[in-house]
C-alpha cells in the first residue's frame, strides 16, 4: 500500500469530516469577516487611516482566525481514539500529519484567502496591492497551519490547552506576520515586494519540510 494512497485517503477523510460539520468551517471565516468589518467602526471611518492600516489589519485578523482553528487539527482525533490508530498505522506518521495539515489549510486557510481581497477593498486597500495580498496569504497561511500543528501536537494531551498553545505558537507566527504585512504595505506604496515574498516562500519551504516531522514526534510524546 503506497504512502501516497494513504495520504490521499486521509486527506479525503478529513475533508469529508469537515463537510459534515460545516459550523467549524464557518467559524474562523466569520471571525475574520467580523474583525475587519468592526475595525472601521472602532477607529472611525477615516479613509486615509483605514487604507494605511489595511495590510496589517487583514494580516492580523487572518493570523488570529488561524489560531482559533488550530485545536481542531488533532483534538477530535485524540478524543475518539483515531489518533492512536494513526500512530499505529503502517505508514510514516509525518506524512499522515502532513495530510491532516493540508486538509486543515484547505478548510480554514483557503476560505480566508478567497474573501481577503473583498474585505481589503472594504478597508480601502489600493488595487495594486491586492495581488500581493493574495500571494502573501497564499504563502503565509500554510506556514501558520504547519507551525500550529507542532503546537497542537505538543498540547493535545492537556485538558485546557488554549492559553499554552497561544503562548507556544504566537512567537513563531510573528515573523510571518511581519513579512506578510510588509509585503502588502510595500506593494501599496509601489515598492518592489520580491524580497518579502521570497522570505515568506522560504518560511513555507522550511515549515513544509520540518513541521510534519516535529509534529509527529510531538504526537508520540503526547500519546505515551
Amino acid at each position: 500500500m503506497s504512502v501516497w494512497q494513504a495520504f490521499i485517503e486521509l486527506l479525503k477523510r478529513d475533508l469529508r469530516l469537515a463537510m459534515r460539520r460545516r459550523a467549524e468551517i464557518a467559524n474562523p471565516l466569520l471571525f475574520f469577516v467580523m474583525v475587519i468589518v468592526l475595525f472601521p467602526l472602532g477607529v472611525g471611518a477615516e479613509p486615509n487611516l483605514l487604507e494605511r492600516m489595511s495590510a496589517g489589519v487583514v494580516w492580523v485578523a487572518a493570523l488570529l482566525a488561524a489560531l482559533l482553528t488550530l485545536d481542531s487539527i488533532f483534538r477530535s482525533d485524540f478524543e475518539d481514539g483515531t489518533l492512536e490508530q494513526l500512530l499505529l498505522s503502517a505508514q510514516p506518521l509525518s506524512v499522515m500529519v502532513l495530510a491532516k495539515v493540508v486538509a486543515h489549510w484547505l478548510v480554514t486557510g483557503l476560505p480566508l484567502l478567497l474573501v481577503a481581497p473583498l474585505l481589503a477593498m472594504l478597508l480601502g486597500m489600493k488595487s495594486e496591492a491586492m495581488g500581493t495580498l493574495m500571494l502573501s496569504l497564499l504563502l503565509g497561511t500554510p506556514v501558520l497551519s504547519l507551525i500550529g500543528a507542532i503546537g497542537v501536537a505538543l498540547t493535545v494531551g492537556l485538558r485546557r490547552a488554549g492559553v499554552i498553545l497561544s503562548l507556544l505558537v504566537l512567537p513563531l507566527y510573528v515573523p510571518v506576520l511581519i513579512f506578510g504585512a510588509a509585503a502588502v504595505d510595500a506593494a501599496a506604496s509601489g515598492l518592489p515586494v520580491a524580497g518579502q515574498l521570497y522570505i515568506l516562500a522560504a518560511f513555507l519551504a522550511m515549515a513544509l519540510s520540518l513541521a510534519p516531522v516535529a509534529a509527529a514526534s510531538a504526537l508520540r510524546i503526547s500519546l505515551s
Partner: protein
Amino acid sequence: MTDLPNSTLHLQADSVECSRDDRLLFENLSVDVSGGEALILEGRNGTGKTTLLRILCGLRRPDEGEVRWSGVSIEECAVDFHRHMVYVGHLDGIKRELTALENLRVLQTLSGRGRYSVEEALEAVKLGGFEDIPVHFLSAGQKRRAALARLLVTDARLWVLDEPFTSLDVYGIELVESLMDNHLSTAGALVMTSHHQVHLSAGVVKRLNLSAD
C-alpha cells in the same frame, strides 16, 4: 509487503518496568506470545493492564526493558510491526460523523488490506445493512462492533485488545469469541484484558495476573 511466516510470529516483552506518577506499576515483567497463543491479562483496576497493552503495541515506551517482535525491538521495526498488529483500545477509534464503511476503508488503506473486504468484515460482525449510516446513529454496542471489525479488514496476525467486550450483549460477546477462536486456530496471536470471563476453545490460553505481588 513481506508475508510473515507463522513461525516468526513472536511478541516478547523482556523485563519491562513502568511507573506512573511515581507509582511503580510493574517491574521485571516478561511476556511471551507466539502464533496460536492467547494471553489474557488479569488484575484489579489500576494495576496497569492498559498501560502494559500500550507498551506492547508501541504507544508507550517502557521505563526499562524492551519489547521485541520476532526478535527485533519494535522501535526498530515499527512499520513492519504495525502492519502485523492491530490494537482496539478503550476508545473505539472511529469517527462518529462517518459511516462504518468509510471508517474501515480509511483504516484499511492505512494498514494494508487483509483477507476480508470491508463489506465482508461488517457482515461478519453482524453490521450488514448499517454500513451507510453515520456511526453517530448506531448504538454503543454496534459502535463497538464497528471498531472490532477493524480486526478483520487488515492482515494483522497479532491482536491487542483492551476490554473488547465493553457494551456488547451476550450474542456480541459470543460472536467476538468465535472470531478470536478463528484467529487463534489460523495461528494468530492475541493479547487482551477483560473483566468478563473469556471462553476460548482454540489455541493455548495463558493468563497473567498483574495484581498478584
